[in-house]
Structures are given as structure tokens and as C-alpha cells.
């Protein structure tokens, strides 16, 4: 049983991974990720890439919604902004390490505009305001044909680094998870800065936060801008990963997907973003594979067995909301506690 963690200086306590056990876990995780393309199947690698992109986007929404308490239903559209920016600039020969930050910054600028109503409204009203922004942006994706390719979509050139084209899942995996690592660390650090604490203060009680000196206008717009920046970068990476995209991808369902990932993962936590994105992507896939096996065993019942995966997934989400509203992070922490206190019970 671990009885405590002892620090000799304040700096040790402030470290991001402040115990040897945590540092070991991070090292193991990094090692696993670095070697994954060498030992996984192509299918798992593709799934890992898709999950990585969703982690990036979920990290952003968790900062806006989980940390700052501002509901956004335009997150999927911000991904679209990033994706189309990368497509447009990529065709002009701009390298990916320039297009991705620009994609993020453009999405962030739009995030500021979309976030303006948050100064006057909150909760469900803010959700509706951001919903309007979603429809406005998706309208632009469909109609601004010269830039977005209109309803037929657009293609995105391969990302290249000093003449070497990043093609295939093997190369894209390192691009995606390199960004996931950097941006997850950035999100974690942000929560420990003045800005991150201001987000939480605004979320918990904005009037009190203002009395304490938090500037509401700046803080709320920062929350939207930073969340949208993450979405923009995720959208850019999505474009590089698929190579072509149509506006249908950036539907309202995508925004709801990220909202569900934030809620099931755990509000206001980087680990929650990761677990939520993994849960929302991998669990339906796992259930689909099981349903597929069932359908193969009973071909005559395929039309009944195959949708069962979705039914079970829906029940799982409801189960989480009812029995563990703090999300998968809380489940993970409970498991951690069991190990820490073993052989005693929590």
C-alpha cells in the first residue's frame, strides 16, 4: 500500500508527472505508441490514427466545455475549417508544418466570433447560438465551391517533410500522435496556468470569477479560441489522413460525437478526453465486430443482429450517465485507488 508521496521542494509537487509511478506509466505509453506501427495490424493502425484525430478534437472541446463550461455545438464545423484550410494551402504547395498552425489559427479566429454570444447567454441558449454557427459554416463548405470544392468535396495533397511525402498510415500515425502528445501536454499545462484557472472559475460561477478579477470577455473568448484551435488542427490532420473530404463529414453528428466523448470521458480532464475519444471510436467498432460475427453465425438474422451493436452502445452511454456521471476518468481513478490502497479496500 502506498501511504503518501513526499516532496522535498515545491517544484517537485508542481511537476506534471509528479511521482515515479506516473513517469513510468508515461514512458511505457510513449514506448507503446512509438512501436505500435511495427507490431499492430494495418487495421489497428488505421483505427489508432482515427482515434488520434478524435483525441485532438476532444481535447479542444474539453477545454471549452469541460474546463470553461461553455457548450459548443460548432466543434465539428471548426474541424471542417481546419480541413479545408489545409486542402486549400496544401494545393498551393504550403508544407504541413505551416498549414496545420494556420488551420488552427483560422479556426481559433472563427471560434472567437462564434464565442461572442457566450458573453450574453449560457447553457442551452449558448448551445443554440453555436448551433447557428455550425449551420452557417457548413453552408459555406457547401457553397464556396472555388475553395471547398462545394458539395463534391476536395482533395488534400499528401503532407511532406523536406521532400519526403508522409503517405500511408505508418507515416501519418507519427504525425498524428506527435501532435496528440504535444497538444495533450499543452492542454494539461494550460489548466495549471492563470488562463486554465480562470476557465474553471468562470465555469463554476462566472459572477464570482469577475469579482475576483477574472475578465469574463477575454476568458470566454479564449476558451472558444483555444478549443477551436485544437479542432482546426484536428481537421487539418483529418484531411491529410483521408486525402479527400466532402462537407457531409462535418455534420452536426460530429459535434455531438465530441460532446458525447467529453461527457463519457470526463469533463475538464485531459485523460477524460483521451478515454472519451477512445470509447466513442473503439467501443462501437468493437460492438460492430461482435455484431458482425453474430450476423455471420446467423445470416438469416443479420438485419436484426447488426443493429444490436448500436443498441448496446446507446445503453452503455445511458449507463455511464446514470451510474458514473463523472465519466471514465472517475472509473480510472477508482481503479488506481484500489491499487494504491491494496490490500485494503477503498
Amino acid at each position, binding site marked *: 500500500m502506498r501511504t503518501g508521496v513526499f516532496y522535498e521542494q515545491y517544484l517537485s509537487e508542481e511537476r506534471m508527472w509528479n511521482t515515479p509511478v506516473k513517469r513510468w506509466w508515461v514512458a511505457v505509453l510513449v514506448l507503446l505508441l512509438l512501436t505500435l506501427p511495427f507490431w499492430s495490424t494495418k487495421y489497428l493502425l*488505421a483505427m489508432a490514427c482515427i482515434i488520434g484525430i478524435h483525441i485532438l478534437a476532444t481535447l479542444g472541446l474539453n477545454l471549452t466545455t469541460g474546463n470553461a463550461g461553455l457548450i459548443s455545438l460548432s466543434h465539428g464545423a471548426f474541424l471542417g475549417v481546419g480541413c479545408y484550410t489545409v486542402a486549400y494551402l496544401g494545393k498551393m504547395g504550403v508544407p504541413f508544418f505551416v498549414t496545420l498552425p494556420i488551420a488552427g489559427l483560422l479556426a481559433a479566429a472563427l471560434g472567437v466570433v462564434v464565442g461572442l454570444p457566450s458573453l450574453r447567454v449560457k447553457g442551452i441558449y449558448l448551445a443554440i447560438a453555436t448551433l447557428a454557427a455550425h449551420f452557417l459554416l457548413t453552408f459555406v463548405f457547401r457553397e464556396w465551391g472555388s475553395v471547398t470544392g462545394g*458539395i463534391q468535396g476536395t482533395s488534400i495533397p499528401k503532407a511532406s517533410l523536406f521532400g519526403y511525402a508522409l503517405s500511408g498510415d505508418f507515416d501519418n500515425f507519427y504525425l498524428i500522435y506527435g501532435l496528440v502528445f504535444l497538444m495533450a501536454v499543452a492542454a494539461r499545462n494550460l489548466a495549471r496556468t492563470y488562463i486554465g484557472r480562470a476557465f474553471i472559475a468562470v465555469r463554476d460561477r462566472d459572477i464570482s470569477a469577475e469579482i475576483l478579477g477574472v475578465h469574463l470577455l477575454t476568458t470566454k473568448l479564449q476558451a472558444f479560441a483555444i478549443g477551436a484551435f485544437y479542432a482546426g488542427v484536428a481537421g487539418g490532420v483529418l484531411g491529410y489522413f483521408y486525402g479527400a473530404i466532402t462537407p457531409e463529414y462535418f455534420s452536426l453528428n460530429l459535434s455531438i460525437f465530441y460532446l458525447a466523448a467529453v461527457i463519457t470521458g470526463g469533463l475538464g480532464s485531459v485523460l477524460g478526453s483521451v478515454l472519451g475519444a477512445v470509447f466513442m471510436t473503439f467501443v462501437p467498432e468493437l460492438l460492430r465486430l461482435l455484431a458482425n460475427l453474430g450476423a455471420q453465425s446467423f445470416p438469416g438474422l443479420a438485419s436484426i443482429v*447488426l443493429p444490436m451493436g448500436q443498441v448496446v452502445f446507446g445503453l452503455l452511454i445511458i449507463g455511464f450517465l446514470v451510474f458514473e456521471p463523472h465519466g471514465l476518468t472517475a472509473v480510472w481513478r477508482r481503479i488506481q485507488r484500489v491499487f494504491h490502497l491494496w490490500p485494503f479496500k477503498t
Partner: protein
Amino acid sequence: MKQVSRRQVVQGLGAAAISPLLMQHGAALAQSGDIVIGAAQPVTGVFAFAGLQMHYGLMDYVDWRNGKGGVQGRKLRYVMEDSGFKVDQGVAIFKKIMAAEKPSFFYCDGTPLVKAITRDAVDSKHVMTSSTSLASAVADASTTPQHFVPGATYGRLHEVLMEHVAKTWKGAEKPRIAYVYTEAEFGIDGIPAGKARAAKLGLPIVAEVITKPGGVGVDVSTEVAKLRRARPNIVIFQGYINAPMPEFARQMKEAGMDVDIYGTAWGLDKPAFDGLANVGENLTGVSLYAVSDEDVPMLREMRQHQAKVRSGTTYLSPFYISGWFSGMVFAEIADRCLKDKKALTLDNMKAALESIKNWDTGGVIGLPVDLSRHEVLAGRVIRYNPAKKSMEPAGEWISV
């Protein structure tokens, strides 16, 4: 340090020398087994009604063809997984099947998936794709060289429709035409080509109504008022499977409008013609394929096969026929390659596809088919027969 013996060096060099031969042998083995057709079908989700039919169509064709001895003595093998009409899921399925089965053909659930997998499919150099999509964007061999559309694109269908109207309209004046379509690709794609052909034929387009995708939340009464002012003789619906067509038809009737209602392709399936029949309208439209109970050889085979494996089902949905027809094209491509003793590489299969001209499809399409442009350039107008409660031919096959 471990010493390496001369024997081990010789063995190593020998293995290195024969490895290319072994690899060639491996490639030869890959060329001699089953011909795999992978598929990501939307068996669940918003397009489940279509996905299940496309799945049955393609699966039944593979069964039927294998019953006839396969392709040049090789069996077809169909590997399908449910995509739920989600791009991420479809891409994962594509990558999974590509890695595990090395398919020669892959069937996608729609335009977004075709676009998302094109780069990987082309890079693989061993897979040709098709899908339910009739979008012109995926019939472009310069951007999607591995893909073909199993029928006419939306643009071609609208051109056929305009040609039919120009030829068969009996009124003294040219018919006034109105368009009602969704703002999704499914709705918009064919409209410019239809309008261009109408202009060429001197057919006036008097109104255009654009609705939200799926026709959800359409204020029908406002749109009908707009149509009433335009006084059309024909209203062409594009991009709807059923709603809001019956509601439009009912309100147009109540407003005293005497119009013919037209549709295309998937908008001519049972939900559409039944829905319109319920409000007393007989749907007309341009079809990709022969109709369900038409007496042509390949549809007879479909009906017999369906009766054998799915007794009680008599109706052949256009989605089912599309799945079956895609299988026919896959098999024809493989057949042409194997006859010429060519491996099933993308280059060879693309050349085989483009060599398909004057192809007899057993009546699935009533004209000799030309697939050299990765799409079929023909269609035919069909009309609802209230006595039979089914669609029947209303004109000749038209090539555009």
C-alpha cells in the same frame, strides 16, 4: 560474439537468391485463389433500407455466379461489413479487408467513402471500387481512376429525362418544368446537367425549390405556393426517397395544380411510388435499370435466386439490382483480365473496364452497355401503374 559458419553464410545467400522467386510464387498464389469482393455496406444507420438491399444484391450475385462455375474457374468471395454510413467506420473496414483479404474489388457505401479511400486504393494497385453513389465526381477517371459508377450518373439521368419529355410531350406548348431538390449532393449533383439539356431542347425551367437534406422540416405549403405561381406542367423531385414528395403532391392537388410528378433512380423505389399512390399520384421517372417484374433474362435469374434464398420476397428494389449489377461488372472485369492471362492489378482491371463496350447485361440495362467512361450513359423512363401497383416501362432506353 557468435561465430557465423561458412555453411550459414551459404544458406543465407541461397535464401536471399531464391526469395524473389518465392515472392513471385506468392504473388502467383494470390492470383490463383478466390477473387475477393470486399464491401462496406450501410446495413445499419440512416441508409439501412438501401444498404441491406445492396448487400443482398451483391451477395446473391456472388452466390449465383459461383453456382455457374465462378469466373474462369475461380470462385468469387464476398466479404462484407456494416459501415453504418459513417466515413470513419467505412475507412476502417476498407483497411481491415485490404489487409486481411487483399480484395480485387471493393464496394463502398457512398461518395464520401469513395473519396476517403481513393488514395489508398490507388496506392495499393490491386483494387477496383464501385458504390451506390451516382455522383459525377466519382465517375471522373482523372480523380478516381479505380472507380466506376454502376449505372448512369445523376447528370446523365436528368439528361435522359429531358430528352424523354421533349420527345413524348403531347401538349401544344413546351412543358413548363419545376425542380424540387435537396441541398445535399444526392439532390444537387444532376441539376446543372438537367438544366443545360432542358435549355438545349427549349424546355423552360420555371421554378426551383431547394430543401434541406432528406426533406426534413420543409415548409411544404410555402413551397407549393411558389410552385403554383410558376404554373409548371412537370415537377421533378431529386434527392428524396419518400418524404416530402407525397405531401407536395397532396398540397399541389389541393391547390388545383395539374402536374406530372417525376423522379430519378433511388427516388423511384417502393416507398416513393407507394407514398405517392396513397395521395392519388402516379410517379414517373428515369430509372437506371429494368423494373422489378420485367421479363428479361437476368432479372428472371435474380427473381429465381431471390426466391431460393429469401422466399417470400418478390420485389426487386433498384438498390438490389444495383448491388447485383455491380457484381456483374466486377466479374466481367475479372473475366476479361483472366481470359487475357493478366494479373488482377489496378492497371489491368482499369483497362478491362474501359474495354467494356457493347456489353449485353441480360436486360438489366436494355441497351448494349459502354463502361469506357466509368459510368453507363443510358437510362429509361418508367411510370407507376396503379392497376398493378408497380412501376413499368414508359418509353425506350435513351442513350446520352
